[in-house]
């Protein structure tokens, strides 16, 4: 018995920085004591974060290749506008179902390391086949390639989220999700700025357009190769860390069953609905926004383009910052409500006023989107056990994709028939729905979960420390 323990000292010592006696690394070899190689130290975690960021970079980069090269697809390769849009539909519609399956496969069959590698490889193969389809000018092959790419892309995002929680659950989870969100925007933006210059490179201009496009897309697939290498690197680091810390990949040896999905707690489904209700008022607006700003605010087409891309640019910067703030304060559910209110205010201004600066409004839009995204996704980790994380994220992605696909069809019809004011009211209704479900989540959390989802950061650390110490004491007792 430790001599410092008296009758009055608490039986369970709260953890400090997550370190406690039984957590000491078994043996020090090589560079392990160094901060950068010690899985317990923040520096190592941040290095892992850097690798994690680039896990999906290839998929985000290549996803928007058609948009960056749109005029070439339509004019040189002779695609009609609907054939071009189908390049995106073949990615999104299958993912209504595939994300869920991918998440389940990660949890049950492949495990996170192999799963990430497999899905990154699907992205790579999809992009290469896409390049081949363009090279030989076969539209059917291009569609099949986007389908393959879609299998990899969305499930890779699920894998990335699962990795993030596995490494950062007790630490800066919100900020990490903010950083990952940022990377998706950065990948897309880099793509938009880089693909046209690559296409115009002198050494390629002699080729016929299909061959030219094929070569350019093949060059783009280098980012997917990079992603695959990141998954391999991350798999090694993860395996090493788990070995050093004495943990297993499937921690308790239990695996998820399909029927576990029906036993997910209500908050998971509430979060799904909030996610859909919020995202359908963001993405469809941005894709339809150009004409809106052109006509209503009388901007030039270039300015309208800049205004509609402003939320993405702002969120690339604001997401990590908002995530950091949310980490410091906790109370995720309140942050979601706050972010939704801000977006609501933004839509109200866009719908009912003419005088406000559209740049300011869209920047405000971007910040509110960052707040909601950085606070919403980490909440899932507090609702489901680790063995079901991939599945839960897969379901959320699936529901989100389904909602977006359906609403995208509806928004086009609404604008054509009844104009933009009706569309804005439509978005406002969805935001109100999100707010209602958010309040339901808040009330449910208060009543049935001891306020676990909405704890402040300090409280969360304290309680999690106590729980961890209790678990270790139980484990020590069992030995």
């Amino acid at each position, binding site marked *: 018995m430790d001599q410092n323990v008296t009758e009055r000292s608490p039986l369970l010592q709260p953890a400090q920085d997550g370190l406690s006696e039984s957590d000491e690394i078994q043996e020090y070899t090589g560079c392990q004591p160094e901060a950068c190689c010690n899985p317990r130290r923040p520096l190592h975690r941040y290095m892992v974060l850097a690798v994690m960021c680039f896990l999906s970079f290839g998929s985000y980069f290549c996803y928007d290749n058609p948009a960056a090269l749109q005029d070439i697809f339509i004019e040189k390769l002779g695609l009609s506008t609907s054939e071009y849009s189908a390049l995106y539909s073949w990615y999104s519609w299958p993912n209504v179902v595939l994300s869920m399956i991918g998440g389940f496969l990660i949890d049950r069959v492949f495990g996170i390391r192999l799963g990430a590698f497999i899905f990154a490889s699907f992205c790579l193969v999809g992009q290469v086949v896409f390049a081949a389809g363009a090279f030989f000018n076969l539209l059917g092959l291009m569609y099949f390639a986007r389908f393959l790419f879609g299998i990899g892309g969305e499930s890779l995002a699920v894998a990335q989220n699962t990795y993030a929680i596995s490494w950062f659950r007790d630490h800066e989870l919100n900020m990490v999700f903010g950083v990952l969100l940022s990377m998706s925007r950065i990948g897309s933006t880099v793509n938009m700025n880089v693909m046209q210059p690559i296409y115009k490179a002198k050494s390629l201009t002699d080729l016929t357009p299909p061959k030219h496009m094929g070569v350019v897309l093949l060059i783009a697939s280098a980012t997917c190769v990079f992603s695959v290498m990141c998954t391999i690197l991350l798999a090694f680091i993860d395996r090493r860390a788990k070995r050093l810390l004495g943990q297993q990949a499937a921690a308790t040896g239990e695996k998820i069953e399909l029927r576990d999905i029906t036993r997910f707690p209500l908050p998971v489904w509430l979060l799904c609905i909030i996610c859909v209700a919020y995202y359908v008022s963001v993405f469809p607006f941005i894709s339809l926004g150009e*004409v809106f700003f052109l006509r209503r605010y009388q901007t030039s087409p270039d300015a309208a383009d800049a205004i509609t891309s402003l939320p993405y640019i702002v969120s690339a910067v604001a997401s990590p910052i908002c995530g950091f703030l949310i980490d410091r304060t906790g109370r995720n559910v309140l942050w979601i409500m706050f972010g939704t209110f801000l977006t609501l205010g933004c839509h109200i201004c866009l719908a009912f006023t003419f005088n406000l600066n559209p740049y300011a409004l869209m920047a405000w839009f971007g910040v509110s989107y960052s707040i909601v995204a950085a606070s919403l996704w980490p909440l899932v980790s507090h609702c489901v056990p680790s063995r079901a994380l991939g599945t839960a994220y897969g379901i959320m992605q699936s529901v989100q994709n389904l909602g977006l696909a359906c609403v995208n069809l509806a928004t086009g019809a609404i604008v054509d028939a009844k*104009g*933009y004011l009706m569309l804005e009211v439509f978005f406002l209704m969805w935001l*109100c729905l999100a707010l209602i479900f958010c309040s339901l989540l808040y009330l449910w959390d208060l009543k049935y979960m001891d306020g676990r989802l909405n704890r402040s950061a300090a409280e969360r650390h304290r309680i999690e420390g106590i729980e961890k110490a209790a678990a270790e004491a139980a484990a020590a007792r069992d030995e």
Partner: protein
Amino acid sequence: MSKFTFAFTNLIEYSDKNDKVEIPTNPVNTTHVYPFSSFLWRLEQAPEILSNGLTQFVLSAYSMMETMAPEVDPATYSVDNAGDEQLAEIFKKNGSSLKLKVQLSPTVGRADDLPQLQFTSNNTQVEFQLKDLFSSVPDARFGVETVLLDGTPDADGMQREQKIEYVLNIDDEFTPGVFRMSNWLSPDSCYAQWKPVCYKAEKRTISNSTVVKHTDLVQLSVGLTEALNNSFAYPLYGGDLLQLTGARAINVTFGIPKDKFYAATNYTVWTVSVGLGQPPADAVSTLVIIVILCGLGLPFLLMSAAVIYLCVRRCRQPAPDGAVSAYQPINA
């Protein structure tokens, strides 16, 4: 008795080298001006009353060359008719036309087709359509010069000062994507009203819509006055048009930069409503108000009810359930 005239005076074909949708102010040999008075008109659709109560007829323009027997060599024509050759050029393509569709309504209502301008019993809507017109340069655009003459002097016998004003409206239900109305007024007398939008295809949707711009009001030139004197305006007003009417002209252009010019779709249709009195104003429609009240009002009511319920519950229970009391040591 009130009388006024709204006239299409010139069709302008110009080469938009800088892609700015501006008619060149200096004379350029790529700018062709086709006076409407040199067109011939046929009644493509006789006046008829449609099922929705509107009276409608369609005029279609053609050039004199069309009436000529094919074997006549245009080169043998005299100089007076040289303009007709140029005019015939724009109608070279098969199926090309310049049409004016005129609609009137005995009652208040709205047109069926976009931009769905309002009818009063005192106005007429004219749809100006350019279809498949030919031009020799690939960057050609078309514009039209229009004139508003007010034949009714005001109470003091003075000419009215015309102006163009823009009315903003948050509701674009009837013309999706368009939030303003252009009103060309001769105050309290007559007006020409249009939404600054024209459509690039027969199927009128937002994606096929583009912008309509116009120049500032200018006084009539001598040539224009001459042309109007040769038109129906003369028997209406007699004598010197400039004296009697505060007439003004504008040039209307269609399209925006980088839209690949008229040749992108070879189609333009623009609707303008002309009438006596005050131009009708668009208000927020009842449907929108109902949807806003139900779609937003109900959720806000629900939220307020939830917040009040929470506050009441909090006030009733000052200490949270299961509060852990401070630990008291057993042996002090």
